[in-house]
């Protein structure tokens, strides 16, 4: 019993540390794509945490929405961002926010 508890504690500690580590990696990764992939991994790990915390409903929601859909959204956004870069470099990008007056063309 004692050993089991010890083992469980070790598991918890490792899980928590991995979670924090992944979050840190996702937030500091110099490459955006890597950051997003790490974030998705983070989401999946969160799902594991929810299972561990006896919250299977949340785990399902996290896996499907938090990691899955959010991840898909992030990836597609990144690809659009990349396309924009190609496009804007073609069109002499206008890279400063123009101090335009509030638009009145509604």
């Amino acid at each position, binding site marked *: 019993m004692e050993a089991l508890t010890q083992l469980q504690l070790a598991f918890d500690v490792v899980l928590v540390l991995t979670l924090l580590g992944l979050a840190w990696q996702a937030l500091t990764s110099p490459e955006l794509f890597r950051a997003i992939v790490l974030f998705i991994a983070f989401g999946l790990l969160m799902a594991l945490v929810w299972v561990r915390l006896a919250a299977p409903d949340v785990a399902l929601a996290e896996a499907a929405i938090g990691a*899955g*859909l959010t991840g898909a959204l992030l990836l597609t956004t990144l690809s659009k961002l990349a396309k924009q870069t190609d496009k804007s470099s073609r069109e002499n990008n206008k890279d400063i926010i123009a101090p335009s007056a509030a638009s009145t063309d509604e």
Partner: protein
Amino acid sequence: MRLLLMALIIAMAAGLAYAILSLPAESAGLSVYTTENIAISGVTNPVTAVLLNYRAYDTFLELGVLLLALLGVWSLGSTATASQRPSAPGPVLDNLARVLVPILIVVAGYLFWAGAYIPGGAFQAGAVLGAAGVLLILAGWRINHRLVGLPLRISLVLGLVVFAVVGTLFMLTDRQFLEFPPQYAGVLILLIEGLATLSIGIALAALFLGADPEEDDN
């Protein structure tokens, strides 16, 4: 500057940690109440009971949040490249979609059905449905242009509207909004969940797509 920021945040974290550790070591929260009333809630999964009965009003507004986010995304118009067709999917993706989409739809149906008893429910099911939609979009499939206008919109608001209508109906019989008679609660929740799953799935897929497909057509 960053050091100062770090110090501030660490101080905040320390305070928060202290506050959390000072919480009572045991607390059942509201679980006494949720268990007590589970029999008349219409479902047996306590989380579903909270989501679709005890605190159904939150869920109702949350459907509003999802729809609102979609409205917001659509109001932003085309995002420069959003309207560009993705490059033709490779055969792998195409085949994958053909296999996975039906499976996902079945999983979604199961999750929504099972949500009443075991983990699962409208949001999880809706998300899986949404994933199916994402896959279809990635595979290059586009919604038929005849369905793009009103029919699509109706399917998006269906969950919210039926939720509200069911909630309102019983107001006429001297009950409060969203107060389900226990004997019908199960059926009603199933009805609401089913349509909500549909709306959530379509909304999530639409969020993935980006701009309003109706405008993209033009």
